[in-house]
C-alpha cells in the first residue's frame, strides 16, 4: 500500500469537539471534566489565581463603563462575558511571548502586567494608546479590524529570523481577533503568510457571536475553527467561557509555535454580555432570552462553584478578592480622573522620527498663533477680537 497517503494525525481536540462542540475542562455547573488532549493539572493556588483575575478584570471593566456613563471616558469597549477567554489565553503566554490585541483585550493587558489606567488613556482621549510594545510584550490596541494580525505575523517572522524558535525557550506570538475580523482581507492574508512561512503565531479568535449587530452567520457558513484547515494549519474550538480550557488550549498552541510547528487558530466560543461599546444598544438586535441563556454559562460563576464544591477556597478568600476588587476599582477611578490633558503643543509631537521641514514650519505658525492669545490673556479684557475672549485656555 505504498501509494496510499500517510494517515493524517487526528487533530488535537477533535474528540472533544465531536462530543461537546468544543474543548471544555469546566462545565457551566462548575464540574471538572477531563480531556485526553488538553488535560492540565493545576494547584489550588492556581485555581484561586484564575478566579481572582476574572473578578478583578470584570471589576475594572465595570468601573470603566461607569466612568464613561459619567462623562469621564469618551467611549469604552466592554469585555463583559469574555473574561475567561482573555485570562485563559493571557495566562498561557510566557514572558517572552508577544501579544497583539484588538481594542477589547483589557483582560490580556492585565495578565501582561499593564496598568489598567493605561487603557483608559485612549478611551478618555488624552492619547492614542501610546505604549512601548516591548515593555510588557503587549502591542498597542489596534482599532482597525484585523490589521494587527499582519503585524503579529510579521513580528513572528522576525522571531524566526532571529533564530528564536525551536526550543522550550523559544518565542511565540498571539494575535487577537474577533469573529467579525475573520471576514477581513488582512486576517486572511495573515493566515496565508503565517502558513507560507511557518510563522510562530497563534490566531486567537474570540467568537463573541456578534460584530456589533451582525451575528456570526453573516461572516461564515462553517464554524470558524474549520477555516484553519483550508489554510493548512490546525484549528480548534474551545469553550471561551471556561478559563481552564482556554488556558490549556492556548498554552499548547503557543508551545507548538515556539517549537517550530507553525501557526494555529483557536476559536474561543464566548458571548459579549454587554454592548459592542458604550455607544451601542444591543436591544435593537438581540433578544433578552439569549442573554439569559448565556448568563447561565458565566465564566466566573462556574469557577466559583468549582472552588466552593472542591473546597479549594473558603469565604475568607472570596471576601478578600471582593475587597481587592473594590480597592482596584477605586484606584482605576482616581487614576482616570487624575490623567492630565495633553498640552496643545503636543499636537505636533512625534509625527516623524526625524525632521520634517514643512511640518516644523506649520508648528512654528501654530505656536505663533497660540502666543498671540497668551499675550492678550495677560492683559485682562484687552482682547480686541469680539467673541474670542476666553475661547482659548
Amino acid at each position, binding site marked *: 500500500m505504498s501509494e496510499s497517503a500517510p494517515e493524517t494525525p487526528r487533530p488535537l481536540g477533535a474528540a472533544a469537539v465531536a462530543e461537546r462542540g468544543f474543548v471544555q475542562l469546566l462545565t457551566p455547573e462548575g464540574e471538572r471534566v477531563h480531556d485526553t488532549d488538553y488535560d492540565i493539572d493545576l494547584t489550588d493556588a492556581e485555581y484561586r489565581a484564575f478566579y481572582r483575575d476574572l473578578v478583578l478584570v470584570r471589576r475594572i471593566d465595570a468601573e470603566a463603563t461607569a466612568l464613561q456613563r459619567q462623562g469621564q471616558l469618551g467611549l469604552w469597549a466592554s469585555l463583559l462575558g469574555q473574561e475567561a477567554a482573555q485570562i485563559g489565553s493571557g495566562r498561557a503566554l510566557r514572558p517572552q511571548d508577544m501579544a497583539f490585541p484588538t481594542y477589547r483585550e483589557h483582560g490580556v493587558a492585565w495578565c501582561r502586567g499593564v496598568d489598567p489606567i493605561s487603557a483608559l488613556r485612549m478611551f478618555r482621549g488624552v492619547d492614542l494608546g501610546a505604549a512601548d510594545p516591548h515593555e510588557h510584550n503587549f502591542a498597542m490596541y489596534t482599532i482597525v479590524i484585523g490589521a494587527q494580525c499582519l*503585524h503579529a505575523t510579521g513580528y513572528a517572522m*522576525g522571531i524566526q529570523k532571529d533564530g528564536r524558535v525551536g526550543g522550550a525557550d523559544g518565542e511565540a506570538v498571539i494575535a487577537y481577533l474577533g469573529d467579525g475580523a475573520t471576514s477581513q482581507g488582512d486576517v486572511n*492574508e495573515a493566515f496565508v503568510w503565517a502558513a507560507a512561512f511557518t510563522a510562530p503565531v497563534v490566531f486567537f479568535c474570540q467568537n463573541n457571536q456578534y460584530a456589533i449587530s451582525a451575528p456570526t452567520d453573516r461572516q461564515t457558513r462553517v464554524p470558524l475553527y474549520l477555516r484553519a484547515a483550508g489554510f493548512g494549519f490546525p484549528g480548534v474550538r474551545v469553550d471561551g467561557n471556561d478559563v481552564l480550557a482556554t488556558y490549556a488550549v492556548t498554552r499548547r498552541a503557543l508551545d507548538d509555535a515556539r517549537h517550530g510547528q507553525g501557526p494555529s487558530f483557536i476559536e474561543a466560543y464566548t458571548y459579549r454580555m454587554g454592548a459592542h461599546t458604550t455607544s451601542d444598544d444591543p436591544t435593537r438586535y438581540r433578544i433578552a432570552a439569549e442573554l439569559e441563556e448565556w448568563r447561565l454559562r458565566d465564566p466566573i460563576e462556574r469557577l466559583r462553584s468549582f472552588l466552593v464544591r472542591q473546597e479549594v477556597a473558603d469565604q475568607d478568600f472570596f471576601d478578600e478578592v471582593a475587597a481587592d476588587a473594590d480597592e482596584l476599582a477605586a484606584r482605576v477611578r482616581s487614576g482616570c480622573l487624575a490623567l492630565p490633558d495633553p498640552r496643545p503643543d503636543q499636537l505636533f509631537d512625534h509625527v516623524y522620527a526625524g525632521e520634517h521641514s514643512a511640518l516644523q514650519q506649520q508648528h512654528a505658525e501654530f505656536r505663533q498663533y497660540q502666543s498671540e492669545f497668551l499675550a492678550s490673556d495677560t492683559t485682562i479684557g484687552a482682547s480686541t477680537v469680539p467673541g474670542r475672549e476666553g475661547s482659548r485656555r
Partner: protein
Amino acid sequence: MTSMTLAKALNAGLRNALDSDPKTLIMGEDVGRLGGVFRVTDGLQKDFGEHRVIDTPLAESGIIGTAIGLAMRGYRPICEIQFDGFVYPAYDQIVSQLAKMHYRSQGLVKLPVVVRIPFGGGIGAVEHHSESPEAYFAHTAGLKVVACSNPADGYTMIQQAVASDDPVIFFEPKRRYWEKGEVPDTAPADDWYPLESARVVRPGTDATLVGYGPMVRTLLESAEAATAEGRDLEVIDLRTLSPLDLEPVYASVERTGRLIVVHEAPGTLGMGAEIAARVTERCFYSLEAPVLRVTGYDTPYPPSRLEEEYLPDLDRVLDAVDRSFGF
C-alpha cells in the same frame, strides 16, 4: 563614478543597503528568483539568501502589514509594490498603520520601512500599470514621500531612504529605468545630496519649471528647446514631495517671476495645487503671471494608445511657458 541605468543604480544602492546592515530585508512579489519584474532586485536573493530577500505571497496589504511587524521586531524592510496601481490594497496598512504608529506611540515605535513603487506612464502598458498616486501619500502625515529622476539620485536616495527612521514611500519613474547616467558609487555618503532637498538641475533666468520623477527629463528637454526661442528656463527637480522643499522654488520664482509645475498625476488636488498655493503665498509680489500647471487630465489613466495625449510633454510644457509670458 560609474555609468549605469536607473534600474542598475537602484540595484547597486539596494545591494549596499543589504551589505551594510544585516537587519535590512527586501520583500515583495517576484523580487527574489526573478529579480523583480523590472529586475531592480536582480541577483540580490542569490547573494543574500531567501531570508533577506523574500518572495512574498501575492497580497499587497500583507506585504506592508508584515513589514510593520518585522520593523517592530527591529528589522528594516524594503517593500516592493510591483506597479503603482497595485498599491491600493495596501493603502489601509500604509495610511492607518505605517504612517500613524510613531505618532500613536508617542515615538516609542519606529517603523523604518521603505515602500518602493515604480510609477508613471509612457511604457504602453495595460490598465493599472501607469498611475501616479503620489498625492495620496504626500497628503498623509507620518509618511515621507520622495521620487528619484535619474541614476545618481536612484543610487543615493534609496540608501538614504533605507537609513531613515521614518517610513518612506519611494517612487521610481519606470519609463526612465533604462536610461543611463553617472552614479557616485565611490563618493562617501556624507557628500551625497540630502534626501529631503529639492535641486536646481538647470539654472535659468526667465521662468521656472518644477517637476519630479519622470517629468524632470521632459522639463530639461523643454528648457533646451526653449533656448531656440531665446528663453532661458530654470528647471527644479523636487525630489522630495513630503516634506516639500520649496525654498529653492521660492528663490527661483523671486528671480524669474514665472512658475510652471508639471506632473503626470491628474491636476485636481495634485502636488501642483499645493505648490501653486504656497508659492502664491510666499512670492505674491514677485509673480508676473499666475502659477500654471501642466498635468495629466482628470480622467482615469487612458488606454496606452492615448497616453501621449494624456501625459505632459515638451509641447504642452512650452505652451504653458508661452501662456505664462502672455500675462
